[in-house]
């Protein structure tokens, strides 16, 4: 699939999304779809760093929440419109990404993961104590009527379709470019990559920044979705786990992996929430995770590849 082909598919998906928004289908579709697509963005963004470069970021909630709280700040201070929120949420999270990029200078492997986790805790404490954005009490957003669309559900869904397509296209482009090959080399062996002429630091900074940007983008519309944001749910550990689990289930080395993982696991979680509706939901996630990493270590895409090679 050439880049132009991918663009066509991307535009087609967006078209489908808009079409779905235009159709008067059940509004629940938009809400559930929003969450699944949000996970497509998160998983894909995480995978740029975790899958391509091999740096496991445990601090996904920090980036997501930073996107959400940047939005809240801008709404509260300037009544900024949604597109501005998304760009700014992404940029602020990208800055944090750049910061953790410099951490990779000294920290590898699990140390890096733990540092990102610690960062998340510190950031959460900051937000808890920052009354302007609601602090520990949380922030209630009163939504005006949805502009251009007939409801916020449709608007947010359509927006997420666009964001997901853009994120996936960007990730795919990177994966197939010299940057992607360089990242793969440094994931396999950083020292050897550097000695083969790969500017590892610059590539890592690029990956952490870009990954942070899209994680922030995923969080930026969140206040409009829930209308009530408080630190413990914005910094929910689930984001860290899902960001990691979805690409693992789908496969981490290609752009398709996180998309498949996010759609499968995200949909499964949505369905479980409204059907099984008990602890079993979480249990399923746990069992699926364990089974997958044990039985299909390269994820679904890896499994398919292996079957095809036979």
């Amino acid at each position, binding site marked *: 699939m050439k880049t132009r082909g991918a663009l066509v598919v991307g535009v087609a998906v967006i078209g489908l999304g808009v079409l779905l928004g235009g159709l008067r289908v059940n509004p629940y579709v938009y809400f559930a779809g929003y969450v699944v697509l949000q996970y497509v963005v998160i998983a894909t963004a995480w995978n740029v760093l975790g899958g391509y470069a091999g740096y496991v970021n445990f601090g996904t909630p920090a980036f997501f929440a930073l996107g959400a709280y940047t939005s809240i700040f801008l709404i509260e201070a300037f009544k900024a419109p949604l597109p501005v929120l998304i760009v700014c949420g992404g940029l602020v999270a990208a800055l944090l990404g750049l910061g953790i990029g410099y951490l990779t200078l000294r920290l590898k492997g699990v140390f890096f993961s*733990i540092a990102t986790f610690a960062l998340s805790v510190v950031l959460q404490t900051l937000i808890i*104590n920052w009354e302007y954005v609601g602090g520990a009490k949380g922030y209630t957003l009163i939504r005006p009527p949805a502009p251009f669309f007939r409801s916020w559900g449709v608007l947010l869904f359509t927006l997420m379709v666009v964001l997901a397509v853009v994120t996936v296209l960007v990730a795919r482009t990177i994966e197939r470019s010299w940057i992607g090959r360089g990242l793969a080399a440094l994931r396999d062996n950083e020292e050897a990559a550097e000695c083969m002429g790969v500017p590892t630091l610059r590539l890592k900074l690029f990956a952490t920044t870009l990954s942070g940007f899209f994680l922030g983008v995923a969080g930026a519309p969140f206040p409009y979705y829930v209308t009530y944001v408080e630190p413990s749910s914005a910094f929910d550990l689930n984001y860290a786990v899902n960001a*990691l689990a979805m690409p693992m289930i789908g496969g981490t080395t290609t752009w398709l992996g996180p998309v498949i993982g996010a759609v499968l696991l995200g949909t499964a979680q949505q369905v479980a929430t409204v059907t099984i509706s008990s602890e079993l939901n979480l249990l399923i996630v746990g069992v699926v*995770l364990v089974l997958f*990493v044990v039985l299909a270590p390269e994820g679904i895409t890896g499994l398919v590849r292996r079957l095809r090679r036979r």
Partner: protein
Amino acid sequence: MFTWDLLANAVVAGILLGGFYAAVSLGVSLTFGLLDVVNIAHPAFVILGAYAAYVMNSSFGLDPILTGVLFTPLFYALGAGVYRIYYSSFERRGEESLRGLVFFFGLLFIIEVALSLKYGVDYRLVEAAYIGKSIDLGGVGIAFRLLVPCVVGLLMTLALSLFLSRTFYGRAVMGVSQDQVALRLMGANPVRIKTIAFGIGIAAASLSGALLITISPVVPSTDRDYIGRVFAITVLGGLGSVGGTLVASIILGVAESLMATLFGPSWSLAVSFGILLLALAVRPAGLFGR
């Protein structure tokens, strides 16, 4: 608002807390520090230990810490079993780090959910003679509820470091982390040694779970509060250094306690993790890194 008395009390409370943190972190120090197994589910095993203590306490009136000790063989077996699965699924294939992490995350969920299915989501507490009592040593009050876990934590640290330095298996565990070839020449099977070490790590969770429920009420999801702390301590102490783990535990305990007493507790957790971030940036190998 500062008095020397308050400072002394804060430091003592921090040391007590640190002793307990050491107990919770020891297992991770062993499994993560020495075996390089990122057992993120360790706090979940701790909670499992806490529930064991709760069940024995509420149905037979057994002392929680005694239960913790009694259950160690069971937890050892559990740990050994988990390691076997981990080994054959990941380590042998040489792809442990990332997938292993997800494996343990899954395990953490399974334990949490299994507990809440069986025992519900109510806060669980235990009763013991020493809970709620304290002694006063020259103006410094010491609560038994914290003193007992601290002492047990120190004993556990001591026992573990003696085990590692004085026994054949202990030295073999230390060897596993450094030179597997030499280990084979010694006639020890690294997988067997690692199984034993992992089993001990989880056995420690049994005991530290009992300590945890002595200190504060427990629900199945309490483990999440400890994931960060435990790994912070292990990393801060320097991987694989039992003494370092103890020192790091006490540093964290005292930092939290001092913040809480003198400046307001709101920032205590952030300060702990700030210390960790700083330590990682300045000295990635931790305070007593190998």
